[in-house]
């Protein structure tokens, strides 16, 4: 929320402290290192893109950021406070401040859309049932799904499931929204609508957005800042505004990615 994000975060850190800071992070499954030595910062109210070709570890990095994959080395800091070394209570408090939209929505199939969105509200707030219904209706209206309260996820198209997943991710008014491939699998128009929705929500809610994406139009449309992950070297090889990277980057891999291989280097 705008007011919340202007105020000093708990812990007394000033507004110059980045919302999310990744410090020397190395992610591995067992002994196979996926990405190493990642260091970057996401400022408040920014839309930050994690980009790179398929299989470079974008989604793994996201899993590391939201705590699903404990890092092999390094740390993730939210508002300057360590997330990876936080005790379970504090970790829960931090987790409640972020919302995650999974690649396929990850809606609970045995619940209706309304029940899906209501679940975090029921569990983490003391709102009355009637108020929860209002909030749920509002959240669904925000993602363009007004009137779909009683539908089950299996009755919806992929794009609608994704938007419903977004409504659930926003249920608790998170400060940080994580998106895993927000526009993947959507047709160009739905994909554009999703981008507009992300921009609109960021502007009106003041939330910080971290999105994994490899969809160029979407990256250029919404990205304020980005890191480029490389599968071969297993680390980040570029950082900056995607449009600026397109104009200025001299790295052949980054250029090939951002120009769909037209830069004379075989793509991916």
């Amino acid at each position, binding site marked *: 929320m*705008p007011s919340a994000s202007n105020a000093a975060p708990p812990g007394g850190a000033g507004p110059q402290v980045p919302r999310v800071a990744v410090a020397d992070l190395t992610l591995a499954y067992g002994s196979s290192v996926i990405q190493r030595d990642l260091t970057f910062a996401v400022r408040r109210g920014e839309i930050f893109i994690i980009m790179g070709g398929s299989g470079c570890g974008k989604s793994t990095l996201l899993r590391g950021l939201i705590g699903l994959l404990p890092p092999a080395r390094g740390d993730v800091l939210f508002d300057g406070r360590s997330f990876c070394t936080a005790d379970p209570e504090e970790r829960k408090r931090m987790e409640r401040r972020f919302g995650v939209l999974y690649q396929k929505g990850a809606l609970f199939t045995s619940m209706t859309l309304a029940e899906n969105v209501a679940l975090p509200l029921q569990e983490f*707030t003391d709102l009355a049932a009637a108020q929860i219904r*209002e909030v749920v209706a*509002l959240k669904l*209206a925000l993602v363009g799904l*007004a*009137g779909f309260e009683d539908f089950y996820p299996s009755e919806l198209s992929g794009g609608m499931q994704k938007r419903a997943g977004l409504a659930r991710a926003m249920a608790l*008014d998170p400060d940080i929204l994580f998106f895993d491939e927000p526009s993947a699998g959507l047709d160009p128009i739905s994909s554009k609508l999703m981008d507009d929705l992300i921009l609109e929500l960021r502007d*009106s809610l*003041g939330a910080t957005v971290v999105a994994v994406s490899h969809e160029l139009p979407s990256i250029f449309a919404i990205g304020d800042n980005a890191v480029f992950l490389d599968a071969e070297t297993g680390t980040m090889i570029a950082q900056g505004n995607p449009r600026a990277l397109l104009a200025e980057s001299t790295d052949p891999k980054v250029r090939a990615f951002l120009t769909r291989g037209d830069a004379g280097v075989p793509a991916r």
Partner: protein
Amino acid sequence: MAERWQMRVEHPVDGTALVRLSGSWRMEDRLPAVGEVQRQIETGRALRRIVFDTQGVTAWDTGLLAFVSKLREWGSAEGIEPDLTGLPEGIQRLLRLAAAVPPRKTGRSDIRLPWLARVGTTALAAWAGAAEMLTFVGGAFLAVLALLRGKARLRGSDLAVYIQECGASALPIVTLISFLVGLILAFVGAVQLRRFGAQIYVADLVGVAMAREMGPMMTAIIMAGRSGAAFAAQIGSMQANEEVDALTTMGLSPMEFLVLPRMVALTLMMPLLTLYADLLGILGGAFVGITMLGLAPTQYFHETQSFLNLTDFAMGLIKSVVFGVLVALAGCLRGMQCGRSSAAVGVAVTSAVVTGIVCIIFSDAILTVVYNALGF
């Protein structure tokens, strides 16, 4: 208790209500209901406009958004259009966004059908279900015929995997259950027979009960819970994942590719497992006979041997083949009927086990009556 939010309704001009909000308007602040505003608006005056002043609001979230949206809803029902310009910029944008896509008339109705109509709908659904089941059984039968005529392909590697899955891998659980069933039967018999000094007949009782009834039935129930459920889960998740569709479009019949090997494997393994279960059950009975009733091992086995004949075992084995076919069919049928979600897979598995066990008991009753009529 002092609230963290404050609200005052003023009437600066006749016909205008100024809703002045200040303090913290977040979800956890126990925000007021819209009725509070209605109460504060002076009655008896014609209200034409609602305006907001939110300069004193220090923090807000969806709580304020829901409040304003509800107020607006009430306003438009009363014919008053609230003027939103006094609200925070973010709220105005979000309200516009929420109104961007009009609520869809989804055509859902919660009207309860009359009693007769519900009976009719249920009956039609049951009929459709029965037709679907018959179609499936017919399809499976045709596939078996094709296999026998050498027209259907049975992938050997698949068959081997299923044979291991529902044969060798089931041995530990079948061992445990059959041994215990034999033991229980012996206990029940011993209590009665000891009163007449006829302990030795425990051997006859356990032997005949295991061979004709309990061996095949317990094995079948274990396999319904083990393999029937596994078949439904495997095929069901393939169905949910569109893999069955992929098979069909490749020109491979799901019936041949998925159902046939499972059915053949289970039908082949059931009699073997049943024989094994019979033996273990008799051992369980012998354990009780020897340790509790003081019978000599040779005595017990001699009695069993002289009382049982091959017909008893054959009767049990015929049953076990029938059970095997039924359990495999129930598992595969429920898997093929599975919907396209992960929840549907769970439903399919439950349904496969229930259907399997009902079929087992039902066919067992029929077969027992038939055997009796034929004099076996």
